[in-house]
């Protein structure tokens, strides 16, 4: 059923994650502002169901906000990385992309609607069994995310959705690839103090933030009272679960897979590296071409190893001398015989 404020039928042409072109014709819902420089609206099918969500950078007199544009790109990049890593087994808990167009008048992405609701409204309300399910789903999502070599860098209760069974992570505008520098302002009460713009993106920063989200949901305490895990009751099950999560040095924090094991979930191993056999073949071809240009390898060291006994390819100097004497002797004998 159409709602007030709908923007009429829209036709959008976009790039798909597979590199092809796609088109959608749908009825546009009302725009909302999820953040500075950004706008978002649902796109409805003719039967009134929500097909997908369009998130766009708003253009002000043709000019767009550079930060909002980068954040949109970060969201696209994160979803594409997840898609490349997990392929047909794309996990529902991680962002999925329908398409994007960065060259449109208002650059945008299209994604499926997110099920569930932000856990910001569930703090202190989950039952014991629900807590365990939520914690397991959250850290499993982080394991899957780190397998795609993506750091969310903005986890907080508003971007973690929960439908009673599944977690869905959203809000990837500040995300970065593992090992590169954070390009956005990632500092927040939910992130480790050392995680700031230009710091190296580390999946263990997400573990810290997820630890705070879990503590917030379980205890109902505001983040200000949970800083560095301070508000987590000592010797509680929560304290055991989050042991080491708030260490200053990210290398000393447990990984998401380790937290999962503490929850009794062995389903995911530690993150595996992304690989691409065709790219590896290209890199090997580069190495071969480079070696060819560098010329032949350096000559072997001057000192020769001793000949192996019975080596037919090598004759010792003593043997050569003996052979020489025999040869001269035979020559002299022959000269006497035939001379």
């Amino acid at each position, binding site marked *: 059923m159409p709602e007030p404020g709908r923007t009429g039928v829209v036709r959008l042409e976009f790039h798909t994650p597979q590199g092809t072109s796609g088109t959608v014709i749908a009825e546009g819902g009302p725009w909302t502002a999820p953040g500075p420089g950004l706008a978002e609206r649902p796109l409805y099918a003719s039967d009134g169901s929500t097909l997908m969500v369009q998130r766009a950078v708003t*253009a002000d007199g043709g000019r767009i906000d550079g930060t909002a544009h980068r954040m949109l790109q970060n969201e696209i*990049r994160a979803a594409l990385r997840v898609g490349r890593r997990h392929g047909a087994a794309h996990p529902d808990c991680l962002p999925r992309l329908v398409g994007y167009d960065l060259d449109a008048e208002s650059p945008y992405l299209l994604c499926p609607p997110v099920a569930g609701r932000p856990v910001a409204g569930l703090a202190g309300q989950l039952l014991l069994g629900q807590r365990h399910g939520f914690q397991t789903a959250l850290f499993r999502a982080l394991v899957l995310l780190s397998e795609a070599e993506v750091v969310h860098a903005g986890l907080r209760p508003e971007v973690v959705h929960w439908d009673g069974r599944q977690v869905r992570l959203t809000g990837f505008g500040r995300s970065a690839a593992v090992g590169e*520098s954070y390009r956005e302002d990632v500092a927040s009460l939910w992130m480790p103090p050392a995680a700031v713009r230009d710091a190296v993106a580390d999946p263990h920063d997400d573990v810290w933030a997820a630890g705070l989200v879990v503590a917030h949901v379980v205890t109902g305490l505001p983040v200000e009272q949970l800083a560095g895990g301070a508000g987590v009751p000592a010797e509680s099950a929560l304290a055991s679960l989050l042991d080491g999560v708030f260490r200053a040095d990210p290398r000393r924090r447990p990984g998401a897979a380790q937290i999962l094991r503490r929850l009794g979930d062995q389903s995911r191993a530690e993150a595996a590296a992304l690989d691409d056999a065709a*790219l590896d*073949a*290209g890199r090997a*071809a580069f190495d071969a071409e480079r070696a060819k240009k560098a010329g032949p390898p350096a000559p072997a060291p001057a000192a020769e190893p001793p000949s192996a006994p019975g080596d037919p390819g090598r004759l010792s100097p003593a043997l050569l001398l003996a052979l020489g004497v025999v040869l001269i002797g035979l020559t002299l004998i022959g000269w006497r015989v035939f001379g």
Partner: protein
Amino acid sequence: MNVTPAGAATGVVRCPICLDVFRWDPADDGLFAFSEEAGYVPLRIPADASPEKRAGARRLAHLRCPNPSGDRPAHFLPLLYTAYRPPIVIGLVGASLSGKTHLLAAMMGEIENDRLAAFDLKADALDPVRHRTFMRQYTRPLLEKGRRLPGTVEGVADFADALLISSATGTWPVAFFDIGGEDLSRLRDNTRFLNGVTALMFVVDAETVGAGGNARDDTYRAVLGMLHPGSGHLDVPAAVVLNKADLIRFEPPVDAWIHRPPADRLDAGTVLAESRDVYAYLHRAGATALLQPYRYCRRCTLHFASATGARARDGEFPHGVRPMRVLEPLVALLAMSGVFGAAAARQVGS
């Protein structure tokens, strides 16, 4: 600034336009001043001019190439071109629409914003009038007004712009030749400058790579074949720039490079790693013909870059222009040319 002849002792200059070598008289005679209104007019420096006034006049002066072989129309060189070390002459090579002019314009814009300072390099205009003209015609319309530039004008035989680049080890005149793709692929007469280039920048249009497989660029074969027809390797530093990389910014391994903040120092290891990834990307796409520069040039680097950061619509970049990694290829060429010292010249591109 005291302007003295190249290699001061000899006063011998090789003109980058006609390639003739001539001896230059360092006296004040035979100099020209240039203005956009009057063109080149003889420069008279009064005999009683103060040393400061003389130096100022010579800083902007030109000399007329005598073109001893008499095979080119009259042409002039900035006096500063002759005043330092042997110049670095960079030829941009690539098909029409590969984005050579956009790349050069974006590069000049980044240099104007002092982005070479991160590499401890300083850049000044070699010929201020010519530099102003280039900025007015190309860089400002692109970067400030978001306008798509017209293709390179065919038939031009002069360098597009030139800089004086200084490092801790010295100062080098650096001239950029941007010649039309058709001229290059047919090796027309105005490509004679290629015989005098000391560095090559091959520009690949990312949009053509992987579009139908077997991407190629006829200018590469023509230029490499002319400069080095036999076997062995060409001893001219080369950089291959996979331009318009914004169009493939989310593809691996492009996404690992193009989103990086600009480099803040020269790091031979990083240059090698990026070269390896660009090579692998082109190799995977079956664009082996575009890898010719790496195969045939002894020292060669490969780079992901985008002059504009976006695709033009109706001749404009409506969201503005955001150059991505456009200085890295130039810095690599400068390193291979010795601007960062002998050690860096050995390490980069080898």
